């Protein structure tokens, strides 16, 4: 059956979108801070890193404070604020996508054009943070102090965690009681602490309510994101989206398993109405299935400015050279963000202008993620995208032989789509009854409608058996045989 790709519906899938990134927010007032999904842009080449942290703090900016462990004392040049919109652009461009196809009626030539609107979901807010105070003698050194944009920034080094904790408390920050568990290892690993508050004076000059993302850059062989500190003030699961740019290829986690999120699946037409919920369910199901301690790859593409095909299909505009420079990609030769005094000239000459984009999605909690995220840049340049397909049936009458065949195929295909849907989202098939019936307004033979097919699929699925258990049995059997032979003295 000929299919035509006509239009692409882009959907933004940011399940509850909030929360701290690498560090933790510390409240100056005992208030409720909410955050659940954080976003980070990582740029890495050689030993150089640029990290941009999305700031979606909601509340009185006087209460905002943040601590991020960093490997070196940052200079003022190493810190800047960037435009918030870059995150939205990157998200739009790389988010899991729904693509639409239309069948052609085999009985006559017919095609139609339609357009789709974008669907964005606002995220619910949740989660609490409670700060507690503990006291001890302080042994904290302020390594540097800057005002950058609307922020007051301190770089601290500490000898021991109680001292750091005390210092923060004495200076009006309230930090989570269990932060000490991670502060100590960080201090002993010789990390510095990047402490951020809002400078109200500067803030007022800006005349805007948003806190802009902070971008830092440094040289260090460590390629990691310190998520452990962020767990100190969050109970429950937190989502983290990492947008990474490298010169060589994809990044991957070295201490957690990398899994490509399931992609290129045909799903029923009615999912279109609520693609965000579909993907949210799918992600949760896959996350549970893969035992939680995983890095999900949602997107990987070569976004080099000269590369003509930056997505297939595109759901958002690919990042432009300015966007990349804004994100911190320094090797494009953009003069604006070219003030790396530590970058040797030689590297500029040899370096290519390649930019590879990776989008990783983590959902972490204290139990599943005992370690900070450690990454490596791999030479893997393969493209990847999380892509789900819906197909509109042809319309008209199907009185010719090919038409009858088409209906038969359509029935089989839709059954498969329903099965795929329940499998991917881990939901019971009955949950989709409502949507399936709602879709009944299609002008098509009732025998191919989802509502009609649903009970049949249900019956079929109940008769299905699970396969992987068989493999475990084979393995056990082999071991058993070997043991037996050994015991019998045959080997």
């Amino acid at each position, binding site marked *: 059956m000929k299919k035509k790709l006509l239009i692409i519906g882009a959907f933004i899938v940011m399940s509850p979108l909030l929360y701290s990134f690498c560090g933790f927010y510390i409240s100056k007032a005992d208030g409720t801070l909410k955050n659940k999904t954080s976003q980070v842009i990582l740029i890495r080449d050689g030993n150089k890193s640029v990290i941009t942290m999305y700031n979606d703090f909601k509340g009185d900016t006087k209460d905002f404070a943040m601590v991020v462990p960093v490997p070196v004392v940052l200079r003022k040049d190493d810190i800047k604020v960037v435009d918030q919109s870059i995150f939205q652009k990157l998200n739009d461009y790389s988010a899991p996508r729904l693509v639409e196809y239309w069948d052609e009626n085999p009985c006559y030539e017919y095609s139609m054009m339609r357009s789709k609107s974008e669907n964005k979901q606002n995220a619910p807010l949740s989660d609490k943070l409670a700060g507690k105070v503990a006291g001890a003698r302080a042994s904290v050194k302020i390594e540097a102090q800057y005002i950058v944009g609307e922020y007051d920034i301190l770089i601290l080094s500490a000898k021991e965690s109680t001292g750091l904790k005390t210092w923060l408390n004495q200076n009006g920050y309230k930090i989570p009681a269990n932060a000490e568990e991670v502060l*100590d290892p960080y201090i002993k690993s010789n990390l510095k602490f990047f402490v951020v508050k809002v400078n109200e004076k500067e803030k007022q000059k800006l005349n805007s309510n948003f806190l802009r993302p902070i971008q830092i850059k440094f040289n260090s062989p460590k390629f990691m994101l310190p998520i452990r500190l962020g767990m100190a003030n969050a109970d429950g699961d937190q989502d983290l989206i990492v947008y990474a740019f490298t010169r060589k290829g994809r990044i991957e986690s070295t201490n957690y398993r990398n899994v490509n999120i399931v992609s290129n699946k045909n799903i029923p037409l009615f999912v279109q109405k609520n693609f965000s919920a579909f993907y949210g369910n799918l992600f949760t199901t896959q996350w549970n299935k893969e035992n939680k301690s995983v890095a999900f790859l949602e997107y990987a593409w070569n976004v080099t400015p000269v590369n003509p095909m930056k997505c297939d299909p595109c759901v958002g505009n690919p990042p432009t050279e300015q966007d990349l420079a804004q994100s911190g990609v320094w090797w494009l030769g953009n003069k604006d963000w070219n003030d790396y005094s530590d970058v040797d000239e030689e590297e500029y000459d040899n370096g290519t202008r390649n930019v590879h984009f990776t989008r990783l999605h983590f959902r972490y909690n204290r139990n599943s993620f*005992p370690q900070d995220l450690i990454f*490596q840049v*791999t030479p893997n340049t393969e493209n990847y995208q999380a892509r789900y397909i819906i197909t509109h049936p042809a319309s008209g009458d199907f009185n010719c032989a090919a038409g009858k065949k088409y209906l038969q195929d359509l029935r089989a295909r839709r059954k498969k789509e329903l099965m795929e849907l329940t499998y991917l989202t881990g939901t019971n098939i009955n949950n989709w009854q409502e949507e399936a019936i709602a879709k009944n307004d299609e002008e098509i033979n009732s025998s191919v409608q989802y509502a009609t097919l649903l009970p049949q699929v249900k019956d079929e699925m109940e008769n299905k058996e699970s396969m*992987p258990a068989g493999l475990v049995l084979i393995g056990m059997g082999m071991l058993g045989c*070997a043991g037996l032979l050994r015991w019998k003295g045959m*080997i």
Partner: protein
Amino acid sequence: MFSKKIFRDARYFQIIFQSIFLCYGIYFLQWQNEYWLYATYFIGCLGTQFLGEWFLGKKQTPFLKRYKAGIPSALISAFGLSLLLKTNDPGVAIFAAIVTIVSKYLLRFNGKHIFNPSALGIVIAIVLTGNAWISPGQWGSNTVMLFGVMSLGFIVTTRVQKLDVSIAFLGVFAGLLFIRQIIYLGWPMDHFVQSVSTGSLLIFSFFMITDPKTIPNHTTARIIWSTAIAAVAFYLTAFEFINGAPVYVLVLAQPLVPLLDKFFKAKKFEWAPSTNYTLQEKEFLQNIYSRSSI
């Protein structure tokens, strides 16, 4: 008699265990989109073995017999590559397979291989082509029990006297990590468990570093050697943040083996388990283990 032969040869066990690991990866850890890579490694290894035996093999034995005898070792190398080395480029995969197998024919000293074949193939492919990588994260950390038990099972079942290498390496490496992470830095226990429960580390310590053709002959020398590898690998992992450090260190430490063999005189590695053999069986074992490859 045939089954006896099969099971006397530890290499068959190694093949069985490695194939279980590979199946596990494919079915449970989602490596399914890399079939072509595994196929390339196997074809590359078996093909190179064929050519190697044709041009470089010992001519006194009939070719087919020699080639047949070398198949298990080529398979083991192919499994070693499949389990550890990733690439997107079929050319790189073939190159790695060729380096692995050819090193067994060309880089020899005193009847032993100078380099561990798969380790050399992996390191050369990564360093020279720049288009291959080790993916320590591919195993996840939920599989540690399975791996630990199976690897130990493998060694106990085959009763090959190389457990000392595995134990010394793992013990020192994990011990140093423990001291660093738990005692010095003060991370909680699960932080450390996560570090040592990666499948790549276990595969390395039970199936790669143990290759009897590339380790010192004397027990003391073996322990000194693997301890040194563990210590250097620990340093590179913990302080220089190098991924897959053990494999690199193993390759670098390989030229020390002839030196250690010189200082610690010992009988050449003897595979004979405790049971008594008939003359025929001894000949068979001799034949297997003195072959050009493991």
